[in-house]
């Protein structure tokens, strides 16, 4: 099994390290041909406007959507969450249009308001998750078919819809592998289906 990490811009190296620490091979994805080798894709944090423009310029947008439509699991962190969303509030910025969520960009303010906290994520067990929020987005609204996996201050920061997983925060900046393991399990289930 190979997991792709979209390597156009952002913290792709950290995701690579996490997936490798979980014992799986990683392919860095910069061109459509690299998508053919993978069974799951992580869209990292970075700048969503930069990542979206590069996806479009190098014909990755439609290629990713085509794989997503036939069930390839995708996990987006921070900018990756924005890229997955169908609705980006107050913005005409394009996206992959895959998850039925409304996202507010830079929802906590500027860098000075970036923070870390202990987050309860019931699906991962009792132990809280050290969540790092950097100029982070929030999920303001979800459709009924979207599962809410975690909230911070009554706001949605972690959600799943079928083969899509999205978090406002950055598990790749911690040593806690549980979210990556959860995603890898999604990929394994998709392969065995």
């Amino acid at each position, binding site marked *: 099994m190979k997991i792709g990490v979209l390597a156009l811009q952002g913290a792709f190296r950290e995701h690579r390290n996490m997936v490798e620490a979980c014992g799986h091979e990683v392919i860095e994805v910069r061109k459509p041909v690299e998508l053919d080798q993978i069974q799951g894709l992580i869209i990292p944090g970075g700048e969503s406007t930069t990542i979206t423009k590069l996806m479009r310029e190098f014909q990755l947008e439609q290629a990713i959507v085509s794989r997503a439509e036939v069930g390839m699991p995708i996990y987006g962190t921070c900018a990756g969450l924005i890229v997955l969303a169908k609705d980006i509030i107050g913005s005409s910025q394009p996206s992959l249009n895959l998850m039925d969520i409304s996202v507010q960009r830079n929802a906590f303010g500027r860098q000075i308001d970036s*923070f870390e906290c202990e987050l309860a994520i019931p699906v991962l067990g009792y132990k809280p998750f050290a969540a790092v929020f950097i100029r982070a987005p929030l999920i303001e609204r979800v459709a009924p078919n979207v599962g809410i996996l975690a909230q911070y201050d009554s706001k949605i920061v972690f959600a799943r819809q079928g083969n899509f997983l999205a978090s406002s925060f950055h598990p790749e900046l911690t040593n806690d592998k549980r979210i990556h393991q959860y995603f890898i399990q999604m990929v394994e289930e998709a392969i065995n289906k």
Partner: protein
Amino acid sequence: MVEKGSWTVKKGLAEMLKGGVIMDVTTPEQAKIAEEAGACAVMALERVPSDIRAAGGVARMADPTIIQRIMEVVTIPVMAKARIGHFVEAQILEALGADYIDESEVLTPADDLYHINKNDFKVPFVCGAKNLGEALRRIGEGAAMIRTKGEPGTGNVVEAVRHMRTVMGEIRRLQNLPKEELMTAAKNMAAPYDLVLYVAENGKLPVVNFAAGGIATPADAALMMQLGVDGVFVGSGIFKSNNPAARAKAIVAATTHYNDPKILAEVSRDLGEAMPGIEISSLAPEQRMQERGW
């Protein structure tokens, strides 16, 4: 428990900028062009380095209005420069909400002995370095991101290349030293011992390292990426060229696809004139901005 301005959060924003291009801009219009071209952040300035060089005199922090107007029109992070050692300019930039502060040799130093104690701030800092000792001193003071100094405003990449090769060479050397030699190595490079130990063990800086100072073409950006930097600052190189929008977009693509010569050839086409360059040896010693920093 919620913690703002922690080391993880400061360093984390730099991690998110990796593989990207940070562009110098002086107006909201330029900031929009940069964002539209795919910049991962902009540096808000009153003048780009080549104009600072031409104007001479004392270069200071930009007018807060310029920085604020740029923050209003883009959604990407906005950085701003403070003079070396001028901690009040840094306090002002933090109060304005700048996302990153560059304690920069491009501006005229305000202190000829000491840098800002960057650990005092919640906003993260980036600092220039031309060798490993200088990089580790800045990190010791709290810088959460490092960049090569290069020679700003020259459009000549040679100094950035030299600084990057120097840092990488010194890292490789530390990795090969037996542990008992590391304290003397720390003394000789005037760097904190704990950071020297970190580099010797991990073979890299503890923070993100970008290229800056003289990058003018997509090939320059890819050259620096192949030499091992995490991303690129482009100062005068974009808005002093004759087609800024096309050049900016090409440099962004070249930074992503730095290892793919076919794509580099494609994006390097038809960009018009690059900024006029300056031969480093023609600069008088007092015009060399890279010598600022202690």
